[in-house]
Each structure stands twice: as structure tokens, then as C-alpha cells.
């Protein structure tokens, strides 16, 4: 079908028209919902009513937007983390693990500084710094291996996700660590983590629509982080060099750019962003280090962040927008679980959106031309 000589030819575009960059993601979204509709029809559900429920639960119902923001905030962080790294073609798929380590570090900071009686702002700042540092440190493992030994960062960062997950579980369930609740009646029966002291809980602003939408501090930090990433990549020499290294490593080397330092820096930035997501989980939403295997670890924020980044085409502000939409989808999936709303539908839709966006990329980079066989492969007369 695509091989030269066939009827359909794929040619590389010399220029990518701007409208396509918007039209293709929008088209993929429509296509994905049509395809999920087919899945629903094939299994005997009414797609229109399912989508209606989805839309209501995500954005329309009272309090829906607030819940969507809660789901979207971690996705914004992991999405930015993936975007920052993927832009340099550093495939950091360790956002999941970096988020866990960020959550562990931030919880330690929150427990320590929140309990010491200092001002709340200080405890929160300490959590932000600790979350960034934890995530960055975890990301620097695959980063350093890549920078110094050219070890493939895709698989190493992926493997470390599982290590981080087991460490997180271990800290609360299998050892008497700093994070574990050791006093009280329940602690003896079932292992739980210590709740953060009140001064380590992050504040929430309220927007007065839909009967008051709570705006978590993490969402504000995500907006700030997106701006910083945008400025860094679009307005600084560092960002320019990162993009050149991504698009043409050889050209970058000839120009004397330092590859090794950039790999380390970009991995650290990416890990710090994911770690911030972990800190926000502690401070904004869970108010403890959530080590429950069915809690934080069942949300797959890190992996979903890669979806978000890819759909946002690695543009920080587009990532925020996509995070909001995908967050809505996840929120609806959580609220609607029940008899007439099949579980797993949200994952199916997310996967299909990503598939069609990936397929759609082809239309941005290449042009499809229908040609007759004779035109496509001109017959060369032997001399």
C-alpha cells in the first residue's frame, strides 16, 4: 500500500502548513471518538448516551470542573516532563517513577518542616524543592548512564519506574520508616502512612463558577512551570541548543554544542517536573504519602503524561490544554464506573486518541498522493 510503485504514495513535505498542526490533532480526536463509538456499538452500548454521560461528568455537572482539575494537575506535570525531554529526543519514559520519588521526598520534607511549627509557606516551599530534587535525582540515573555510557534511556528509565514503585510500597508496608504511621490503633492492624501536618497542606483558591471551582496550588505551579519551560525552550540559547541537538545531533556537535551537559540538564529538568507532580499529589490532594498499590500507583500519571505530551506536540501550553481534556476523561471514568458505563472505556478512548494522533502525524510530515502505477514508476527503456 505504501511501497513506491503502488497507487498511494507517501512523500515528505518540504513545508508543514500551519493549519495542519491544529487540524490534525482535532481530526484525530474526532476519529478516536468515532472508533470508540464502534467499540461501544459492537458490545451493545449506545455511544451517544455514553459520550453524553462522559461530557456531563467531566465538565458540565456541578463540581465537575473542580474534579477534572484534580485529575488534570498531575497530568500537566508529567506531560511537561515528557515534553521537555522528548523535545530533545531524550525518551524519558520514567515520569512515573520520578513522580513517586518526588512524592517520597516531598512527603519527608512536609512531615519534617510542617511538624516543626514554622510558617506554612516555608513547609510548602520545602516540599516543592524536595519534590523537584527527588524527581531530578531519579531522572539523573538514566540521564547519567545515557550521557556517559550511551546507555539507551528508554528502557532504563522504564525499569526504574518499577524500582521506584516497589520502594514506595516498601517504605509504608514493609518497614517502620519515617513515612509510616507507627502510633494509634489502626497502625497496629493495617500499615498506613503518616498524615501530613496541616501546615504542610497546600492552599486552594476558589473561582466562583459552577458553584465554586477549587483551584489547587499545584495547578498554579503547573501554569508557572509551563511558562518557564516555554521561555527556556523558545527564548534562550540553552533551549535553542537543546532543539538543535534533538533535530540534528551531528550539526549540533559540529557547532560545538556540549551534548553531555545538555542530556544531564534536560533529564534533570524533566525529572524535576515529574517530581513536582508527586509533591503536588502529597500537598494538594492526598495529604500523605500514598503508597497504597491501588492508590497513586494505579493512576499511571507518568504514562498518561506521555500521551498528553505527544498530543500537545511537546508545546508546553498545548500540554496544559490537553492535560485538562484528558483529565476530564479520567475524572469522568472514575465518577461513572458502574453498570451502564463499562470500566476500561476511558483507557480505550485514550489509547485510540493516541493512535489516531500518531497516525495523523504522518499527514503533518508527509503528503499522500494518489498516483497511477505507470506514473509512479516510469519505465526506463534499456539503452
Amino acid at each position, binding site marked *: *500500500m505504501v511501497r513506491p510503485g503502488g497507487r498511494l504514495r507517501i512523500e515528505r513535505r518540504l513545508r508543514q502548513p500551519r493549519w495542519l498542526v491544529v487540524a490534525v490533532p482535532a481530526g484525530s480526536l474526532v476519529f478516536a471518538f468515532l472508533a470508540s463509538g464502534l467499540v461501544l456499538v459492537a458490545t451493545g452500548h449506545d455511544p451517544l448516551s455514553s459520550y453524553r454521560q462522559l461530557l456531563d461528568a467531566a465538565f458540565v455537572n456541578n463540581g465537575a470542573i473542580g474534579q477534572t482539575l484534580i485529575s488534570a494537575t498531575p497530568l500537566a506535570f508529567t506531560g511537561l516532563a515528557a515534553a521537555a525531554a522528548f523535545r530533545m529526543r531524550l525518551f524519558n519514559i520514567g515520569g512515573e517513577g520520578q513522580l513517586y520519588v518526588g512524592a517520597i521526598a516531598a512527603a519527608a520534607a512536609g512531615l519534617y518542616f510542617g511538624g516543626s511549627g514554622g510558617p506554612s509557606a516555608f513547609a510548602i516551599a520545602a516540599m516543592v524543592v524536595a519534590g523537584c530534587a527527588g524527581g531530578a535525582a531519579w531522572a539523573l540515573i538514566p540521564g547519567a548512564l545515557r550521557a556517559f555510557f550511551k546507555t539507551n534511556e528508554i528502557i*532504563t528509565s522504564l525499569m526504574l519506574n518499577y524500582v521506584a514503585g516497589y520502594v514506595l510500597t516498601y517504605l509504608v508496608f*514493609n518497614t517502620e520508616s519515617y513515612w509510616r504511621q507507627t502510633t494509634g490503633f489502626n497502625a497496629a492492624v493495617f500499615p498506613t502512612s503518616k498524615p501530613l501536618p496541616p501546615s504542610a497542606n497546600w492552599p486552594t483558591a476558589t473561582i466562583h463558577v459552577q458553584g465554586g471551582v477549587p483551584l489547587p496550588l499545584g495547578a498554579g505551579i503547573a501554569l508557572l512551570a509551563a511558562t518557564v519551560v516555554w521561555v527556556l525552550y523558545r527564548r534562550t540559547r540553552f533551549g535553542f541548543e537543546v532543539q538543535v541537538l534533538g533535530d540534528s545531533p551531528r550539526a549540533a556537535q559540529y557547532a560545538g554544542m556540549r551534548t553531555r551537559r545538555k542530556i544531564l540538564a534536560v533529564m534533570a529538568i524533566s525529572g524535576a517536573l515529574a517530581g513536582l507532580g508527586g509533591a503536588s499529589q502529597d500537598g494538594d490532594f492526598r495529604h500523605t504519602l500514598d503508597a497504597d498499590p491501588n492508590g497513586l500507583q494505579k493512576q499511571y500519571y507518568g*504514562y498518561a503524561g506521555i500521551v498528553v505530551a505527544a498530543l500537545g506536540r511537546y508545546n508546553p501550553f498545548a500540554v496544559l490544554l490537553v492535560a485538562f481534556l484528558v483529565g476530564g476523561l479520567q475524572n469522568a471514568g472514575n465518577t461513572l464506573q458502574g453498570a451502564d458505563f463499562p470500566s476500561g472505556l476511558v483507557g480505550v478512548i485514550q489509547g485510540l486518541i493516541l493512535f489516531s494522533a500518531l497516525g495523523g502525524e504522518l499527514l503533518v510530515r508527509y503528503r499522500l498522493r494518489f498516483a497511477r502505477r505507470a506514473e509512479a514508476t516510469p519505465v526506463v527503456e534499456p539503452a
Partner: protein
Amino acid sequence: MNNSLLVVLVASGVVYGTPLLYGALGELLAERSGVLNLGVEGMMLVGAVMGFWTVQRLHAGTGLSLAAAVGVAALAGAAMAAIHAFLVITLRASQIVSGLALTIFAGAAGLSSYLGNDLNLADNPARHTFHALFPASVQRWPVVGPIVFGQNVLVYASWACVVLVWLYLTRTRPGLNLRAVGEAPGAADAMGIDVVAYRYAHTLAGGAFAGVAGATFTLAITPQWVDGITGGAGWIAIALVIFAFWRPELCLVGAYFFGALQALAPQLQARNIHLGPTVLWTNTLPYVMTVVVLLLVSTSGARRRLGAPAALGEPYVREER
């Protein structure tokens, strides 16, 4: 003697290692053709749910039901792999993002969960399961009894698969062609090998193996359906391919080693042996060791010697070679 720690560990290493082995053999075939498929976990889960559905709904004898279930699981896995193949081979999409998308689409919170929920599979145990093939008297033989004769057909079939894949890769013309496609697709194409067809065929075969791996869980190890029943085995299978330097015979060794690690923590606990934070290191060791192996093979010379396919992860576009 058969209760000694070592025998128990090896025997349960074989049990828990079998799905890893199937998954790794499949991923190995795909990677040898140059296609990295990170969707193993998703393909396994869809294979697991469809295989389970078959034994629950098909009214036939045990043997026929189980055979049909394994076949359906393989087809389901291959169908999932077809999505990935179309995206990365025909549409030249990023193999990493596409593979992750496949795991999200098919995985524990996606299609497999949707199917399990929609087909009402969660409440009942499997109607037919794979049992040990040999009589109990033979299973009591020292050492080889539990390890060799205490296993089910899926285990013996996996041994046959290892031999077949090894013969295929090293002793047949298509196997040689396959390795050429993974190492130097341009050269293979110039030789007249159909690169696209080879990549499609082996990505699909990889999916079929992953499907069978999933069915191993729902038909033999834990014969029931719960969301996410594979519990990350798909990722270990991907790690295993690297750990085994892309060789089927080493996949077998690695699979049983990683399988035994899964059984180690409860065994040590039952025997009151304390070796530091056992739960932590037995669970994380497969992943840490994979990172170490990757580090060891990361110099280009070692990569070539140890067998990482040179064109792994790269789309092949004839016009741009």
C-alpha cells in the same frame, strides 16, 4: 528433599517464568526484525481475557476448550500487535509512543478491563485449567519430579518454542533474512527481502506469543479473571529480552531466574529466613539487573557482539535510506 528451598524455588521459577518466557520469545522475534513493541503488557492482558472468555463460554471437552482458548488468546494478542505494526511500519510513527499507547489502550485500565467487565468474567473461576501432565507418583521423584514432571502442557510447549525459535533464527533461510532485516534493512531490501512483510509478520507473531503468555495466567497460574492479572509481567518480558542478549536459549534461563525471584520472598518468609529487606530486593532485582545489563552492553562493540539488532527502533523508509 523435594521441599528443600532450592527445588521449590526452581520448580516455582518454572511456573512463574513460563509467561515471561512466552512474552520474551515474542518480543525477541519482533525486536529481531527491528520493531520495539512496548505494548507487551497490553497484548498479554487482552490475550488473558480472551483466552479466559473462551474456556468459560465454549461448550466442549477440557482438551478442546483449552486448545481453543490458547488459539483465541494468540489471535487476540496478534490483533493488538497489528495496530502497533500498522502505526510504526506503515505510518512510520514513533515505536516508543505507539507501544506505550498500546499498553494504555489494551492494558489494565483499557480494553482488557472493558472486555472482562462487559463479558461478565470476573466472578467465576475458570471452567477448565491446565494441570500437571504426569501422574502424582512421578511428580514425587526426587528433584526432577516437581521441577520437570510437575508442570503443565504450556510449560512443555514453551520448551518446544525455545528450540523452534532458536532453530528458526540460526538454521533457516527466513531466520537469516529476519536477522538481516533487523540489522541492516537497507541491505536486506537490496537483497530482495521484503522488509515490510518481515516486520509485519514478526510483530504479529510477537503479539501471538504475548497473547499465549497472558493465557498462561488465566488458564494455569491463577485461573480466574481480575483486572491487570499479569501484574507487570509484560514489562519484565521486555527487560528479559535485553537481559538474554536477544537469544531464545538465554530467555529461558532468565525467565526462570526472574520467576524464581518472584517466589523467593514468600518462601524465605515461610522458612523464617531473613536476608535484609527481602520483599524489596526480590521485586526490584529483575529491573535493576536489566539496567546493569543495558549498561554493560551499551558500548557499540559490545552491542554488536552481544546481538542487539542494529536497526532496532528505527523505521525503514526506502526513499530515505
